[in-house]
């Protein structure tokens, strides 16, 4: 059985869906960050797969930059998280509602 591009894309989609579930479901901010990592990684798989099956390096380049962005996001996000935690002593999403319109 030959593994084609579609397999990878389906896998990527499944992982993305899991990430979405996590993003929507989790109330712990830290775990929310984890879920976003899943989202980013699932897309990375798709990039790499497409890059492979079309023999084009652009996909890999994109995946590469996605990783860079993910890393910076973690750095800044964690910093903010720590500040928030210091101030409020929790990282529960439901307690944050200062943006209520």
């Amino acid at each position, binding site marked *: 059985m030959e*593994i084609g591009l579609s397999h990878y894309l389906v896998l990527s989609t499944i992982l993305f869906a899991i990430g979405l579930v996590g993003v*929507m*479901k989790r109330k712990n901010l830290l775990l929310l960050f*984890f879920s976003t990592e899943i989202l980013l*990684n699932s897309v990375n798989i798709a990039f*790499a797969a497409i890059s492979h099956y079309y023999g084009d390096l652009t996909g890999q380049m994109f995946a*590469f930059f996605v*990783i860079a962005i993910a890393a*910076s996001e973690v750095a800044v996000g964690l910093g903010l998280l720590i500040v928030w935690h210091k101030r409020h002593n929790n990282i529960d999403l439901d307690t944050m509602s200062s943006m209520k319109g």
Partner: protein
Amino acid sequence: MFEAIAFYLFAFLTISMFYIVVTTQQALYALTALAAGMIFISAFFFILGADFLGAVQIIVYTGAVMALYAFGMMFFDTTRDVKEKQGNKFIIVGLSTLSAVLVVLIVSAPIVSDNIVALYPVVDGIGNTQEVGVVLFTKYLIPFEVAAVMLLVAMVAGIVLAGKKMDLSLTLMNDAEIRELNEEKNKKELS
């Protein structure tokens, strides 16, 4: 054949790891499962011949990001569970599934596969790392540099944000003390 087995194996592993991440109540479990999932993903990269990307995945994610999370978690009281009030599960799962199905529909449509032509074709006989290096430092030089600057900025930001008043724990102080602190600061600014 080998490729198929590897694909399904790692697919199963990744999915189950990530499933644990989004379901478990324990932050530590989630962290561990995420790290494992990242490593398994790098396996796909290797299968796909993107050796360099796979290596970066392991180093950056499993090495740097996970370590960062681990350090971050030390600031939080992980034993204290965050109470996760759950809304309608059906909506969450339903929406996710629906979007997944739609994406699959779109990517499997014949129209997608016809229009793609390689911009930077993979050259046979040259190692993946070398190819990546060539493309990265020619065509993508500016984005690369921008990404580098962005990382630097993120690093500075992380340090500043997390390192503010390391000696004080605002959570352990009561309101009066915080007010005093603020007033002191204001006075300093005024003078």
